[in-house]
């Protein structure tokens, strides 16, 4: 079974948690063993959203995961990039894992969106989903589905 890592950033963007649950179930249906790496606060949001762990079976702490990460640990990396720090984390995880990757870049400010997209584009070969989004995850979901079809 292939292994996928979903990398969450700071949970202050409302689109992140529902999209994480959505991405986890989509990948599980594609026979991926899915793990979600996040901060404790982002993990709490997932716990409340999915109390019986129907969709997200494995949750790990982002810092300890990064410490123990090696090339080949996962086959697919999906990262939420909606802050400068999230872009740095995604690029770092990408460089360590050296695996197929998808960056979900979203921001309500167009200039910041372009800045984060450029960071990912210039420093990785990841597939990029970039949309202006904050409260509404639907544009992200639609484009994410399209990228998944190309895997």
């Amino acid at each position, binding site marked *: 079974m292939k292994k996928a890592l979903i990398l969450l950033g700071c*949970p202050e963007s409302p689109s992140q948690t529902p999209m994480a649950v959505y991405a986890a179930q989509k990948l599980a249906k594609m026979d991926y063993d899915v793990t979600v790496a996040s901060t404790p606060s982002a993990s709490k949001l997932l716990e409340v959203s999915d109390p019986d762990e129907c969709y997200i079976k494995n949750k790990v702490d982002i810092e300890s995961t990064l410490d123990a990460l090696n090339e080949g640990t996962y086959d697919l990396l999906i990262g939420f990039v909606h802050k*400068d*720090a999230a*872009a*740095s984390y995604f*690029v*770092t995880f990408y*460089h*360590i894992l050296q695996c197929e990757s998808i960056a979900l870049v979203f921001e309500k400010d167009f200039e910041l969106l372009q800045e984060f997209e450029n960071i990912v584009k210039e*420093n990785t070969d990841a597939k990029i989903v970039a949309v202006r989004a904050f409260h509404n995850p639907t544009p992200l979901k639609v484009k994410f589905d399209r990228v998944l079809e190309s895997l």
Partner: protein
Amino acid sequence: MSFCLETYLQQSDDYEVLLSKAGFKDCAKVIKEKSDEVIYINAGEKILGARIIGIPPIPIGVNENKGTIIISYTKPCHGTAAIELPVEENEIEKIRKIAIKN
């Protein structure tokens, strides 16, 4: 027991935060400005036991006379900080060994 950067930052007061809650680019600029020597490393390399997060090539500042290094330190919700902290000489040698070769 291995050195833990996070614990060190919580329990010590001999380091200086040169910039905090900033973007990676701004911290990289401060590191280059405030250092006698700059060593570049890849994202995810370990310094003082902690993986360095950022956009490669990541600058690490070295002020050998002061016995300090300046590193970027990133947290998901708090952005990136540039931190100058004292290190042993052998730690600087370890950084040179993981430097990106030109």
